[in-house]
């Protein structure tokens, strides 16, 4: 396994395991957008968009786009049966009321305490937080999908985030191309390893200490 779509799909496939029938799920851009491809065909999942869609379906075929049916990023989507439209206050009401079961996000850094830093790209202008803070603070479960290290090879799982926080102590689970971590009150707990990686490789590429589960699940690619 290397860079590219393959490991992205490995991560997305593992994230899909967290989703159960009937859940309300908000997906960020990037790797999270690949998650629906890995769900069982008959599973009923309601994908939520901040602009006011519940029950979002896949992108339409080229030429079938509807300019008035787009996701929060402005790109055309479809609506699944049982879906509905609402205004932005209701869309965020679902989040703050705890009705969004899972949000699956990309991130720049995550700390050992589950602090999330995913809204200011280093070296770029401040773009604004959009809906990231509400999702990070209020979704019932926050799962981060990301490369284990950045392009320069620096660890993204850190003792303390150096980038501005989106929200503190909000992440529940981290999935990278190397491993899966749960965020516990005592710090990170490695629970799974993707083949062919081992604990030493993960430790080398992770800034902070982490605990290791008694039973590590090894996931083949």
């Amino acid at each position: 396994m290397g860079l590219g779509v393959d490991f992205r799909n490995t991560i997305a496939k593992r994230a899909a395991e967290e989703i159960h029938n009937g859940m309300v799920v908000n997906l960020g851009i990037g790797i999270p957008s690949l998650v629906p491809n890995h769900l069982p065909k008959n599973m009923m999942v309601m994908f939520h968009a901040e602009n006011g869609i519940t029950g979002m379906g896949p992108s339409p075929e080229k030429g079938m786009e509807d300019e008035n049916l787009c996701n929060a990023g402005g790109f055309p989507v479809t609506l699944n049966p049982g879906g509905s439209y609402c205004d932005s206050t209701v869309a965020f009401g679902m989040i703050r009321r705890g009705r969004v079961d899972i949000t699956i996000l990309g991130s720049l850094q995550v700390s050992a305490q589950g602090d999330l830093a995913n809204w200011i790209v280093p070296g770029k202008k401040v773009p604004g937080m959009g809906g990231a803070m509400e999702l990070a603070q209020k979704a019932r479960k926050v799962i981060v999908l990301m490369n284990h290290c950045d392009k320069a090879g620096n660890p993204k799982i850190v003792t303390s985030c150096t980038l501005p926080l989106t929200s503190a102590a909000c992440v529940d689970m981290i999935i990278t191309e190397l491993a899966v971590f749960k965020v516990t009150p005592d710090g990170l707990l490695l629970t799974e390893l993707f083949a062919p990686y081992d604990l030493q490789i993960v430790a080398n590429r992770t800034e902070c200490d982490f605990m290791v589960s008694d039973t590590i699940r090894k996931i083949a690619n």
Partner: protein
Amino acid sequence: MENPFGKVKTLEKVLEVFYNGMTLMFGGFGGVGSPPTLIDGILEKGIRDITLIGNDTGFPHIGIGKLVSQGRAIKVIASHIGSNPIAGKLMHEGRLEVEFSPQGILAERIRAGGVGLPAILSDIGMENELVSRNKPHFLLNGKDYLIETALTAEVSIVYAKKADPYGNLIYDKSARNTNPLVAMAGDITIAEVEEIVPLGSLDPNEIITPGVFVDHIIPSKGVNWKWAWE
């Protein structure tokens, strides 16, 4: 019946969520839009010591008034109880605590609870003891306001015209009233509906309450009280 989300239930099954001493929020305005089958079920199950939250206490034999008249509530948070003289009687006998909130502010407090906001600021009824009693004030841009706290409930019950199996709801005319707000404010929300229609048969633009907020759906047996105007 098609039930892919497991939300469609029998009355018997949903009655398991009600218990003595609970906080119960109800949709409806003067009984219009209150769920008759759930109210009767709660009555028959003998649930008592309820804290009720809703627009008003209905009429003695209409809507939530049935529960109030039979002494099942220990507290009511409402905008008025005038149409139910038994509520007034119980209040004056010290058997029913009543917290009054101006109608529109009550609706906003319920909505705030429903969308996960802790409170709103208000300038309604500031000089009135009944409204402002025990409420914190806040000075914003030189003007004094009340902090009106959000309301939620352990269980919310609403009445709708149609639901699909996901719990997407549409309401009928003025029977909408407080129902969409109450539907959001329950930790658990139960919708009693006139009709359950197949998934995908409701126009997604017309859905008022997204099913996200609805946990259980039961078919209604219909209004079984005589209206004041009848």
